């Protein structure tokens, strides 16, 4: 060691070992503006880029954690597990895909439903786990959504659902298509009891999910710049044989075309939805329902 090294205070000394000790994922790149950002900073900003406001995709648990009060929280439908009735096999078996998705996400299926509170007001909130086979809707997703509505009807609660899905789950074939009819039909019971359903569309909301309950909210909200549509952009490009305009099928495009009510920043979601739900629930308190 040279006399100069001896003079340096220990923390200035550069060492390879020290650099390796930096935990992975400490820095993240924003997919919106390519800025390299400190992970903790993004996290404390609800996974919204502090530079460009890009709303990054987040998982179902994180979504509900950000949205709901810390307690009370009761999960609904956690006892439902997917099965491979058709013994479906493409390049992989459906059963193996399920096992992988369950291991990777820690979830049993692509929808998580919690009976909890929003700033003190009780409600049921559901969120899609896009990491679970692209948030695809199969039998368990459909049944959990119906169970969410059952809870709302039983306890007179509003429903909020955060969608993030590629559509129906091909591996459950027609059973998954029928979930579109099932979930949409269940919403008629919310309407009959004047219970509000706010549908929040996040990136991405496509296919069978978009073409069923997600577009049936009393109020439909979207996060900024989310991809929302029936057919995927690539399918449309192949059909019409031209490049699609910039911003096609994004939240702002849907707002312009009258398909959604408003775009809400994730950081304002709680406050905004509380105002909306309170208006409906206050109006509802004046309604005389015939005895069941």
């Amino acid at each position: 060691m040279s006399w100069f090294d001896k003079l340096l205070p220990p923390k200035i000394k550069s060492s390879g070992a020290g650099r390796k000790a930096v935990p992975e994922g400490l820095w993240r790149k924003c997919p919106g503006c390519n800025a390299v950002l400190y992970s903790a900073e993004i996290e404390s900003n609800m996974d919204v880029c502090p530079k460009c406001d890009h709303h990054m995709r987040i998982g179902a648990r994180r979504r509900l954690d950000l949205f709901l009060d810390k307690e009370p929280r009761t999960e609904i439908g956690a006892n439902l597990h997917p099965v491979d009735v058709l013994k479906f096999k493409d390049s992989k078996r459906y059963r193996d895909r399920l096992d992988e998705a369950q291991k990777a996400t820690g979830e049993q299926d692509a929808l998580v439903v919690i009976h909890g509170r929003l700033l003190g007001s009780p409600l049921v909130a559901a969120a899609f786990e896009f990491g679970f086979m692209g948030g695809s809707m199969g039998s368990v997703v459909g049944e959990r959504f119906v169970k969410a509505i059952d809870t709302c009807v039983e306890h007179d609660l509003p429903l909020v659902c955060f969608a993030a899905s590629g559509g129906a789950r091909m591996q459950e074939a027609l059973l998954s298509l029928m979930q579109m009819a099932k979930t949409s039909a269940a919403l008629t019971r919310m309407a009959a009891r004047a219970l509000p359903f706010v549908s929040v569309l996040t990136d991405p909301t496509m296919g069978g999910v978009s073409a069923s309950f997600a577009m049936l909210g009393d109020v439909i909200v979207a996060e900024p710049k989310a991809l929302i549509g029936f057919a995927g952009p690539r399918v449309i490009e192949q059909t019409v044989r031209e490049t699609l305009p910039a911003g096609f099928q994004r939240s702002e495009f849907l707002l312009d075309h009258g398909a959604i009510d408003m775009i809400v920043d994730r950081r304002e979601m709680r406050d905004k939805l509380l105002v909306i739900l309170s208006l409906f629930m206050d109006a509802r308190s004046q309604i005389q329902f015939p005895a069941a």
Partner: protein
Amino acid sequence: MNPNFLDFEQSIADLEAKIEALRFADKNSELNINEEINRLRLKSRKLTESIFTSLTPWQISQLARHPQRPYTLDYIERIFTDFQELHGDRAFADDPAIVAGIARLDDRAVAVIGHQKGRDTREKVRRNFGMPRPEGYRKAMRVMKTAERFQMPVITLIDTPGAYPGVGAEERGQSEAIARNLYTMASLRTPIIATVIGEGGSGGALAIGVGDRVMMLQYSTYSVISPEGCASILWKSADKAALAAEAMGITADSLLRLGLIDKIVSEPLGGAHRDVSAMAASLRQALLLSLEQLRGMSVEQLLAARYARLMQYGKFDETR
């Protein structure tokens, strides 16, 4: 190759060609020729029977899309009387990919709604190959709401590759149009009988497919995505469509077994297009029978049963 026959029917086509040739052959030895023709006809029939008893799902999906398969208007003409077509969604346009109207089935006034494909190139383009845009679904819904007011049963005939994936369709809310129909049909206060007559292509089919009775013609298909679409996503190659058709269980038989449909309407030997009148007659019988079964129910009973039916869709494990 005879375009009236599919590739797996070529041996039948060859026999039929022989029969045709003999019919116009020299009349000198008439007796012998007639004997020969009868022998070949019997052989052709036996061959058709044997080919059609073991069709693969992929062969069935080719039959479901057969260029000569009867379409909605072919059935309307043969099953109903006094058909009055109603046009337009009252908001944007009339979509020729869906035909809707009021008519009589026996002596009962009903609403009829169905996808419509075109027969020749011009008509195919005009009907957009049976792929509706949002205004088609909205027209269907408008006519259903009218039917509800007048307590007319709604009869739907399903035959579409899917809802149209185009720019305008997205701009005008294809998703919402389909979703709204699912919602509306779930609680429509009049009987609904849905029949898949050809291709039941995904959400575009389901959007007029929620009902109290769901039937399929024997060689029709019903699936969440086309076999080609499924193959290109999961197998990364549209050439694997036959495998995808197999895996998804898109035939009437497998869907009846899964409890997703109520009834299969048998087709004439060789498929609906071989004898359109016979096909229409048996579809008519099936529709009348379904209506009869629903006649005794009050609207409340009907809706409760329809809701229960929708809620039982799905297979999963439930642990305590």
